[in-house]
């Protein structure tokens, strides 16, 4: 089955086709770009919420509770949970569904677990494509959950309209748990497990840190407390996400973000396409292998080689395009 064959099913609400399409996205099946192209005009309706935070901060529980809250507000929900794959075997244990059992039979909730795999094209793209597919499928709210461990997670949730950064009391008295790089992208901070000692202090610490942010911003990230286990603070959190969306719309930022995102996306897609085709072309070429050896033994330098190869590739590329134009 190819991705393009699934487009109709996804658009008509067939969850099995959606699930299959996401698998093909993960497997980088060749017709995926075309399928996503066909779905593109049907996207842009869902509000995307990204959630990150250290392991054990209760993210899955929070997502479950938020979903319950959204469902009482008659919103449909799609969830993408990203868990690390083993760098050695590529296998992964995806256990986020354990916490989400109460939505297991709700047809208005779609949950998908993804391993980070060794995505050459970048995990961020696979995730954002999956989110896009769910968006086209028609979910009102799309939640992306990922372990806050580093740069790739930042990229993963960068597609979100609203980014939640979760932390818990304790775990040292500073905010080490929230990695640098993740702090800056938060739209809302959530201190979960508010029943644990030190919750208030954690809130104060985060606020103090926000005070040192020199940027002038109309939206200062609020710092909320929740106890996801008992469902406390969840309605307030969902209200705040709504408020953030309203802020994005009213300030024109949503449109601006959309523009910025389209620009970046086009760039990424082009980069990817060019790199893929270039590497495809070079793979196994004797000239290429010779050049590499020369670089290694210092009889040539990588800068000039790159210049030469790319120039040649672009010239070929131009010729090919012109030829296919002529044939038409």
């Amino acid at each position, binding site marked *: 089955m190819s991705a393009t064959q699934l487009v109709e099913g996804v658009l008509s609400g067939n*969850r*099995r086709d959606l*699930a*299959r399409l*996401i*698998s093909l996205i*993960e*497997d*980088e*099946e*060749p017709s995926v770009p075309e399928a996503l192209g066909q779905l593109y005009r049907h996207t842009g309706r869902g509000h995307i919420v990204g959630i990150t935070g250290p392991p054990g901060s209760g993210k899955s529980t929070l997502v479950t509770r938020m979903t319950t809250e959204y469902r009482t507000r008659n919103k449909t929900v799609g969830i993408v949970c990203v868990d690390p*794959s*083993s760098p050695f*075997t*590529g*296998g*992964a*244990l*995806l*256990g986020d*569904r*354990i916490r989400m*059992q109460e939505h*297991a*039979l709700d047809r208005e909730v*779609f*949950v*998908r*677990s993804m*391993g980070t*795999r*060794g*995505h*050459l*094209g970048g995990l961020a793209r696979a995730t954002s494509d999956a989110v896009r597919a769910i968006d086209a499928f028609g979910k009102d709210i799309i939640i992306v959950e990922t372990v806050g461990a580093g740069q790739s997670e930042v990229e993963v949730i960068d597609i979100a309209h609203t980014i939640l950064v979760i932390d818990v009391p304790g775990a040292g008295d500073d905010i080490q748990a929230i990695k640098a790089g993740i702090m800056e992208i938060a739209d809302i901070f959530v201190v979960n497990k508010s029943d644990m000692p030190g919750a208030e202090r954690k809130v104060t610490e985060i606020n103090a840190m926000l005070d040192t942010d020199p940027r002038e911003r109309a939206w200062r990230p609020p710092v909320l407390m929740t106890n996801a286990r008992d469902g406390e603070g969840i309605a307030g959190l969902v209200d705040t996400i709504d408020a953030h969306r309203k802020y994005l719309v009213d300030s024109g930022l949503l449109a601006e973000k959309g523009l910025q995102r389209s620009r970046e996306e086009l760039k990424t897609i082009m980069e990817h396409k060019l790199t*893929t085709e270039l*590497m495809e072309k070079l793979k196994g070429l004797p000239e290429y292998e010779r050049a590499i050896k020369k670089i290694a033994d210092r009889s040539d330098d990588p800068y000039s080689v790159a210049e030469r190869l790319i120039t040649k590739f672009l010239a070929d590329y131009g010729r090919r395009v012109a030829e296919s134009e002529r044939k038409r």
Partner: protein
Amino acid sequence: MSSPKRIRVLVAKPGLDGHDRGAKVVARALRDAGMEVVYTGLRQTPEMIVEAAIQESVHVIGLSILSGAHNALLPRVTELLHKEGADDILVIAGGIIPEDDVPGLKKHGIAEVFGPGTRLSEIVDYIKAHVKL
């Protein structure tokens, strides 16, 4: 530059039985064999199992059951899969299942039953040989 296809497996505990040692050990073995394993926890109804299998688009469902309710619950899983047109999913089972019951389960679409004492590699090999990707 396509990443290799990964075998995706749902490991599930149908019914009320809480003995998940085997399920978890198998889940880890499949992970270490390079598969992506979705584990959903205890007390799964056949409906929940099938819904998860579809949303996660898995190639294999591994059902672990030690309570003796296998004859009631396992055929229900394959029946629901059939209704969803998802017969291509390979369904295997493990746990305490008397030999006498195995033919009946196989007739209902359970591809293989792995009893106590099964080597983990046996299960891995079986999946690799029989999965439809």
